[in-house]
């Protein structure tokens, strides 16, 4: 058989039209470019989705058109009285005979990978009642003799899965439920595990694919954490300058430099969002969705500060803690001879600084007076709350994108409320982050080691959010 020609397992996702085959393929292949439509017959050609590592294919998934004339195919097959071991040859003969026949284009397209060795993943919609019209196509699939499993997809809320199970179990080795719209990594792995069980020879390669998927997920987490770390560092240490030639800078010039500064920060955030989408293979999120992202929740709005930022109390505590740490350092230096006053003074100074740093971003300074080239400068970011706001928004976006199914189309729902902050920001994380934010704010060069440490903290937060 042709199956022996290629070593890797293949799986053809087949079924009645409009039962979510393409959605399932999109979810399993993590490819949001797959055309998904409520109009039947959108998929006209079989399409291969190989899982490849460094160019080597571990397994291959086929999206196929739905059955259109299953009864006619079955009638043709049944005309050929053969023993069970020859049935697949009859199916091959059907394909060969009807390859150029327009009427059976869809059937040829869907049966071809199966007859070439692909396992069958038959998709039905468990939210709609079972019907006898499915029996012809299930019978055709049985003629191929290939290992098969059925997946019950739930397109709507009604549940007819029990009647489906009773029918499907007569035709398929395994019956599983899978909702591509809500499937996360665990469900994905569950389906791969089932696929592995279809044939003994497929166990090892599919298990290897599962490990690879986990590694892939890990890579995505790493890259997202790295992006977010870079965003916070670059935004916090960003400096915007505007040269002026007059005696004194005008209010318009001060406003201009501040606006330029804010716009650059907004752009950094938007670029990061785009990169996060790319990392998680969501390159096809609609452009208008991006424009709507955080609409009414501008990076510098009070709403965004209240949702993602620290409260005034938290900010004072954070400032006081980091100040006290510095103070405690002074105490330590003098072996406690300051009667621990260093800690107290540092705490008060840090807290007061944090309190006054709540609303303003950064002071617009006039620099270069003595050298003759005068310019306005804003940045690095002085507002202690800003890194938390920016990070909160970025984490929120990354979490939404990472959890979004590749089968979903249309707008990404962004419903923000203050409960999100509670999911990731506890006292310990806040204290850890503040140490890094302080370094970023200082305007000094931050070493790659420090950024790496910050990335690790953020990866921990992303993993926590993924489980939430």
């Amino acid at each position, binding site marked *: 058989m042709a199956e022996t020609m290629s070593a890797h397992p293949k799986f053809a996702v087949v079924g*009645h*039209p*409009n039962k979510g085959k393409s959605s399932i393929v999109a979810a399993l*292949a*993590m*490819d949001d*470019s*797959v*055309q998904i*439509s*409520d*109009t*039947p*017959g*959108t*998929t*006209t*050609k079989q*399409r*291969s*989705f*190989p*899982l*490849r*590592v*460094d*160019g080597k294919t571990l397994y291959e998934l086929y*999206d196929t058109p*739905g*059955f*259109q*004339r*299953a*009864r*006619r195919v079955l*009638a043709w097959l049944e005309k050929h009285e053969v023993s069970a071991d020859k049935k697949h040859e009859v199916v091959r003969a059907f394909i060969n005979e009807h390859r150029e026949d327009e*009427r059976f284009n*869809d059937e040829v397209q869907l049966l071809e990978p199966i007859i070439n060795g692909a396992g069958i993943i038959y998709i039905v*919609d468990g939210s*709609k*009642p079972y*019907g*006898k*019209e499915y*029996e*012809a196509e299930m019978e055709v699939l049985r003629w191929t003799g290939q290992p098969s499993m059925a997946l019950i997809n739930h397109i709507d809320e*009604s549940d007819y899965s029990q009647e489906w199970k009773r029918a499907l179990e007569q035709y398929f080795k395994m019956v599983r439920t899978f909702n591509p719209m809500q499937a996360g990594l665990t469900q994905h792995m569950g389906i791969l595990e089932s696929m592995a069980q279809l044939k003994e020879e497929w166990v090892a390669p599919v298990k290897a694919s599962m490990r*690879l998927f986990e*590694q*892939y997920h890990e*890579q995505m987490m*790493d*890259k997202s954490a*790295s992006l977010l770390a870079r965003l916070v560092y670059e935004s916090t240490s960003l400096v915007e300058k505007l040269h002026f030639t007059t005696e004194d800078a005008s209010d318009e010039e001060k406003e201009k430099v501040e606006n330029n500064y804010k716009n650059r920060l907004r752009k950094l955030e938007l670029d990061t969002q785009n990169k996060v989408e790319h990392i998680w*293979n969501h390159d096809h999120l609609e452009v208008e969705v991006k424009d709507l992202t955080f609409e009414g929740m501008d990076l510098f709005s009070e709403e965004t500060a209240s949702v993602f930022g620290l409260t005034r109390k938290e900010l004072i505590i954070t400032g006081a803690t980091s100040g006290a740490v510095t103070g405690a350092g002074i105490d330590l230096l003098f072996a406690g001879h300051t009667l621990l006053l260093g800690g107290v003074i540092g705490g008060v100074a840090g807290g007061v600084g944090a309190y006054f740093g709540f609303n303003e971003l950064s002071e617009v300074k006039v620099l270069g007076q003595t050298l003759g080239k005068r310019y306005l400068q804003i940045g690095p970011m002085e507002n202690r709350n800003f890194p938390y706001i920016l990070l909160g928004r970025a984490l929120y976006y990354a979490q939404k994108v990472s959890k979004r199914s590749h089968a979903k189309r249309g707008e990404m729902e962004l419903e923000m409320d203050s409960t999100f902050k509670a999911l990731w920001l506890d006292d310990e994380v806040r204290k850890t982050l503040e140490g890094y934010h302080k370094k970023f704010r200082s305007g*000094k*060069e931050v*070493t*790659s080691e420090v950024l790496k440490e910050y990335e690790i903290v953020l990866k921990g937060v992303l993993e926590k959010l993924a489980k939430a």
Partner: protein
Amino acid sequence: MNLKSYLNLYELLENDSTAREENRAFGLSHILLKNKPIEQLLVWGNDHIATLQKPTLGDRFTSYLYGVSLVLVFVAFVVGLFSGVALLSYSGHEPVNVVYFMAMVVFFPLLTMTLTLISMFRTNTVQSVLVHVSPAFWMEKIMAFLPNKLQNDIKTLKINPLLANWVVIKRSQVIAWFFSLGLLLALLAMVVTKDIAFAWSTTLDITPEAFHGFLNTVALPWRDFLPSAVPSVELIQNSQYFRLGDKLSEEMIANASKLGEWWKFLAMATLFYALLLRFLMYVLSLIGLKSAVKKSLLSLNGAAKLLREMNEPIISTHALGKEEVFVPSESDYGQIVSQLDASYDVVQGWAISKEQLVVISDSKAVIAPKFFEVGGANSFEEDHEVISKSKGEVLFFVKGWEPPTMDFVDYLHELCLKADKVVLVPVGTAENHYSIKSSAVDVWDRKLSQINEVKVWLKR
């Protein structure tokens, strides 16, 4: 591994346009370097160096640095030489005080070398005062006088502060070494060409014995193998000089020929403290610079991404080719029925049982003499028989949630050959009282628009 490798990699990464696949291929073809990120970066840099425009940034920058360093080295040497001459010049009134010269060749180098050592531990600091006081730090200020093009190169260059500090430290050692060489040559030249009467003088209450003890300690590195280069107590006693009093005229003049013996000590002090120790500092700074280059390579913008691309397998799950999709027309079907008649000649259901058809018809207040199930599990013969019995107006119920297949379309075409009119009614499930969402009816609407069968009407 040197500053040039760093700068070349800096330039390569700034202009990097290599594909991820290419970088991964590099990683796989250099698999032995997998856990050696610095080596990976350097080998990658060497492999891609040809893509850079000549002269490379590394060539240009190191060439400027070399040129400026050369000027500073020359200046330091000349200053050292003249300082030495000035310190050893005999005014004719007073002998040459060896303490001044010792300050320049022993105390000053020891002090600067201590500061250098401290600054070596603080190289991570961007604004290191100890580094900024170094003359080498001012090299960049000198570079401000270079032509515009050269200046632009330097301005846009963002060298890691750790590395920049080490560059300054290393260059400072070279400059200081040449300064000391100038002092030594001045000493030797003066000794050869002039008759110098050395003496020592201090306001402090130091006895010649104590001073001898101190000098003996200073001469520790060479006193065993070169005892003549250590001043004796007698020489020290003879050469002590007081500006007030008449000691000079008697004892010093009497031992004038011996006073010159000091030069051996001063030469050895210069050789050891100002030149040898400084050379060791230079070696230390070379090691530090190499280590800083290593660390800085990893901090280069784009280095982490490049390493990730080399070492992480490329996992792809997406389809290879472009998807061919059928895009149906959006035109509405023209033949719509909004109200069903009270009776029809035949009622048919596609994959709907006869019993269900009776119930559905009743729910729609429709009566008919004949009810037939077609499609579904029927054979084609059974369907043909139903068609042969179907005349006049046919009310055709279909499961609204199931999209129309070509099997259904084939049947519909055949039915239209016999029937006068076919009214297609998509219905919902019994649980929903056979009502159906309009979006599901839209699917049927679009399908009918495509098949364009004049006898078929759609109930909406």
